[in-house]
């Protein structure tokens, strides 16, 4: 079951990444009349400016996916680092928790979509998207990593390493991180799903990663949905495919990590 879920996700990622290479037309060139149905121009018809829907779909997926992956990695990486450090620093020191951990509850209470909208208002570009995803990931990632690390920190091998006088980098990287790695990976999966959601939402707002971002394709296809439903169906199915297969794969990861922790 796990292997099947990962195969599905891998196939979806490969299809999206190699999309631009196999696209029959450029993403921006008109190839027929606007909102032409499939068959007359292009296998999925054309959009409101007569551009090939299939080609736009194939061109728009890769930047969306890569931005999501980058943003999830940055957010999760920062969150894991913060979580590990606060776990080690706050063992036996309550004030560390009050100063460094409680403030992270604040951004955790704000829905990610609001963070995205707020950041994009001031920074309407790709950096803004990555920043928004990272900002909304850090509090949750760090909290999960901290909870996992706290269970490990009292173990004998950590005490031995402490007594040997190892550095913090050694303690965190060699003694603690390997034991919480499965939790961290499962968390990364969840962050990636949120990232796909937010990146698609940014495209939907017209502030996406490319001129044929899937979110943007949905907005543009909505007014002509009655004339050319394929232009709407294609990006809807595309985002659903990436989101659902990513969720299946991350679900498989989460199950396994629960086995390790429990």
């Amino acid at each position, binding site marked *: 079951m796990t292997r099947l879920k990962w195969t599905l996700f891998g196939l979806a990622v490969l299809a999206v990444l190699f999309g631009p290479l196999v696209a029959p037309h450029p993403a921006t060139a008109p190839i027929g009349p606007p909102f032409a149905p499939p068959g007359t121009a292009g296998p999925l018809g054309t959009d409101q400016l007569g551009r090939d829907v299939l080609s736009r779909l194939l061109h728009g997926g890769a930047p969306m996916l890569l931005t999501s992956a980058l943003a999830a990695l940055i957010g999760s990486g920062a969150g894991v680092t913060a979580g590990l450090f606060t776990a080690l620093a706050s063992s036996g020191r309550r004030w560390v928790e009050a100063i460094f951990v409680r403030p992270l*509850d*604040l*951004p955790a*209470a*704000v*829905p*990610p*979509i*609001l963070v995205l*909208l*707020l*950041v*994009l*208002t*001031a*920074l*309407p*570009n790709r950096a*803004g998207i990555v*920043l928004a995803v990272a900002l909304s990931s850090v509090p949750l990632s760090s909290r999960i990593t901290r909870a996992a690390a706290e269970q490990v920190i009292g173990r004998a091998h950590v005490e031995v390493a402490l007594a040997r006088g190892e550095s913090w980098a050694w303690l965190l990287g060699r003694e603690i991180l390997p034991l919480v790695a499965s939790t961290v990976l499962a968390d990364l999966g969840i962050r990636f*799903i949120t990232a796909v*959601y937010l990146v*698609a*939402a940014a495209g*939907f*707002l*017209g*502030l996406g990663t490319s001129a044929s971002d899937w*979110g943007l394709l*949905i*907005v543009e296809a*909505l007014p002509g*949905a*009655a004339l050319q*439903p394929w232009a*709407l*169906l294609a*990006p*809807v199915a595309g*985002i*659903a495919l990436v*989101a*659902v297969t*990513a*969720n*299946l794969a991350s*679900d498989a990861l989460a199950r396994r990590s629960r086995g390790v922790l429990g």
Partner: protein
Amino acid sequence: MIRSLPGRLSAGAVLLALLTFVVYVGVDLLPGDPVTSRLGPNTPPERIAELRHHLGLDRPVLARYGEWVAGLFRGDLGISASGRPVTEMLSDRVGNSALLAAMAVLLLAPLSLVLGLWAAWRRGRPADRVVSAGALLLVSAPEFVVAGALVLLFAVSLRMFPAVSLLPVGASPLAYPEILVLPVLSLLLVGLAYAVRVIRASACAVLASPHVEFLRLGGASGRTVLRRAVVPAVLPVAAQVWLVTGVAFVGGAVLVEKVFGYPGIGELLVASVQSGDLPVVQALVLILGAAMLAALVLADLAVVLLTPRLRTGTR
């Protein structure tokens, strides 16, 4: 626990105050500049400076924040970049959005409880597999993607409901129920997926517990087991999930409203982000954040009221 309510409320107020500060000062610290991005890179610097001065952006951020907070207490949310007072732009829309979220939550509560309990009761059987798989698929789909699929199905193919929420200015959506169907359904489906998963998991845990086995060995009927053991144990969890989902509706509604052109605060928020209208975005984030914190306090309260052990204070 009831005695801790003032504490919770004041913690919520502090959180809200911090949120406004982050929203106001944090956005100012971001490297981008709303004025430059609005006017474009080729605008002469004098023109940018003039607009910055006109919008008051050339004064220190803390002074502006202080005035903004003082305005809040007078019910004044500032002036939007388009020159209209923000409160005037919001007045009708807040009610419309609240209506959307309220209807979705009211439908969510009974549906998710029935589906979640049903799936848990039939654990591992076909009924559970269908409900669980459906929930797993929907829980990962963004609301606007679900909304797009619903438009294709109900507006384009079946022609049952309108794809666009056309509403005369000032009219209440309640007078035109058909435009509410698809937006509410889009929110409901995604929220339902999450709520059913949590309620099913919680009910499964209760059904596997020793006291349910004891009830069953004593000859209690399935209905008695549900009524006496499962529902009371699941309700506190369910209440929390419903309220948290209601909060998520507030965020999800932003994009769903945009899909249907529904005249709520979400649609306004999207338009304001696209035009870089910071005062409107700040006011809306404040309203959404306040709604969210209120729902979280309510969720805590609901858990206390539904859990006798917490209610009587003997933990």
